[in-house]
């Protein structure tokens, strides 16, 4: 029963949204080149499926690499910063600068250094995904119960042991939330990467490239189809993170463990 509900409700909500969409279109007479009907988008997606699939593959590669890099480096950076308040004080502002400087400033420099292509797309995705992970993981690492810290002091744990055995496990749910945010923007990173550093011949660019193509030719249903393709890829990332979340926390965390049965 519960299982059906888990599928039924989002499906129902989806149908409602589609209905509203179609309704708004009808009532306000919005034309297809402003807001295409869901059906038209589906048709466009089917027609362009080969192109979109190839594009998705290109973009998702860069997005995945950047995402994974952000996860690893973000986690490590947070750990290092939790080792000492001085580290944290010295590094955090500059990590913020990295995040807050518009990517359009860095992108050309990156392209000049690394050339267009996958490595640059990866770095751009990385820059976009990095901070949400660091912000969350750091918050988790410093939110440890004071009594636990006392315990670790009493068992003469050094700073590294304290971080590895206490802070990191405690920060796991925070890290995973950061990962969820990063996962949801990884494709945006990939697309931004496409825009600044993608390169292609003929009609086989990444999603970002195809968005520009469709936009330039005012192929609006195709444009939306490309957008939703990106969405679908994004769901892959988020799903992976949710799976990881369940797997890592299932035995002990209040957000997962069902109040007992």
């Amino acid at each position, binding site marked *: 029963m519960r299982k059906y509900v888990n599928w039924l409700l989002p499906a129902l909500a989806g149908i409602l949204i589609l209905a509203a969409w179609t309704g708004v279109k009808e009532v306000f007479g919005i034309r297809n080149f402003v807001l295409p009907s869901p059906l038209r988008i589906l048709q466009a997606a089917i027609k362009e499926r080969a192109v979109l699939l190839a594009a998705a593959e290109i973009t998702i590669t860069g997005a995945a690499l950047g995402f994974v890099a952000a996860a690893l480096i973000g986690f490590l950076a947070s750990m290092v910063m939790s080792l000492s308040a001085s580290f944290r004080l010295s590094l955090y502002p500059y990590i913020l600068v990295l995040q807050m400087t518009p990517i359009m400033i860095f992108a050309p420099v990156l392209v000049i250094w690394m050339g267009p292509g996958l490595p640059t797309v990866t770095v751009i995705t990385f820059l976009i995904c990095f901070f949400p992970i660091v912000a969350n993981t750091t918050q988790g690492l410093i939110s440890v*119960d004071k*009594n*636990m810290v*006392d*315990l*670790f*002091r*009493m*068992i*003469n*744990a050094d700073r590294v*042991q304290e971080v590895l*055995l*206490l802070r990191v*496990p405690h920060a*796991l749910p925070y890290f995973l939330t950061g990962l969820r945010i990063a996962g949801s923007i990884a494709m945006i990173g990939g697309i931004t990467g496409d825009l600044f550093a993608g390169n292609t011949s003929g009609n086989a660019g990444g999603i970002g490239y195809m968005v520009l193509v469709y936009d330039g030719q005012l192929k609006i249903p195709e444009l939306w189809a490309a957008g939703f393709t990106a969405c679908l890829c994004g769901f892959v990332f988020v799903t992976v993170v949710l799976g990881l979340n369940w797997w890592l926390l299932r*035995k*002990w*965390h209040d957000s997962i*463990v069902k109040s007992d049965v």
Partner: protein
Amino acid sequence: MDTPNPPLVSIAALQKRYGQGAVVLDGINLDVNKEEFVSLIGPSGCGKSTLLKLIASLSPVTSGTLTVDGMSPKNAREEMAFIFQEATLLPWRTVTRNIELPLEVSKVAAAKRSEICARMRHLVGLDHVPEHYPRQLSGGMKMRVSIARALSVSPKILLLDEPFGALDEMTRDRLNEELLAIRAQQKFTAFFVTHSVAEAVFLSSRIIVLAPNPGRIAHDFTVPFPYPRTAETRESPEFQRCVAEVSRILRSVSPAHP
């Protein structure tokens, strides 16, 4: 008290307040020798846990001096183990892995570690739940994991903050006896907080009664029974008399409730 050695823990004119709050402990002077078993009793909120935390250097002294084994308490921390008033188990570790934690931290070899752990787990009667997570344990079981964890290292100084408060009398009595057995072997010095006068009398060589507001030493009481002590000790009339005497003292320092 057999040698004229310098005291192991020496506290002089100690005062403690948290931040700008009221004074919690005031004018504490206390010398404790090696292998003494000191119980701290006193009304709730009088500063017993605070005193243990000061000795463990988990909280800074406001004024006065406190040395442990001739060192600053922070440097002496390696010689101590602490059973906290709350169980403080890591929720992501099973019973076994929680008990093993201090051994893991001090890099004891895996084989040795699991041998010690198994022994301690048995001691506290948790053989049947080695893979349980803390959320699956009863309150008393959690506390027992915490006890096993602290006893798995062999400290010179053991700080115990109401370790047996959540246990039934049977388990409590048995663990009392086990504790004394371990003490006979390892010869640790103990600071033991309890609300059970009988327990204090049974375990201790010395009982410190704290008076509240601000916390200060009201009585320093030497328990006259020799070790080893057994279940029979509890039954003896002298024991009962001693308990009654300490209870009376405790009663006299407790704040009258209007």
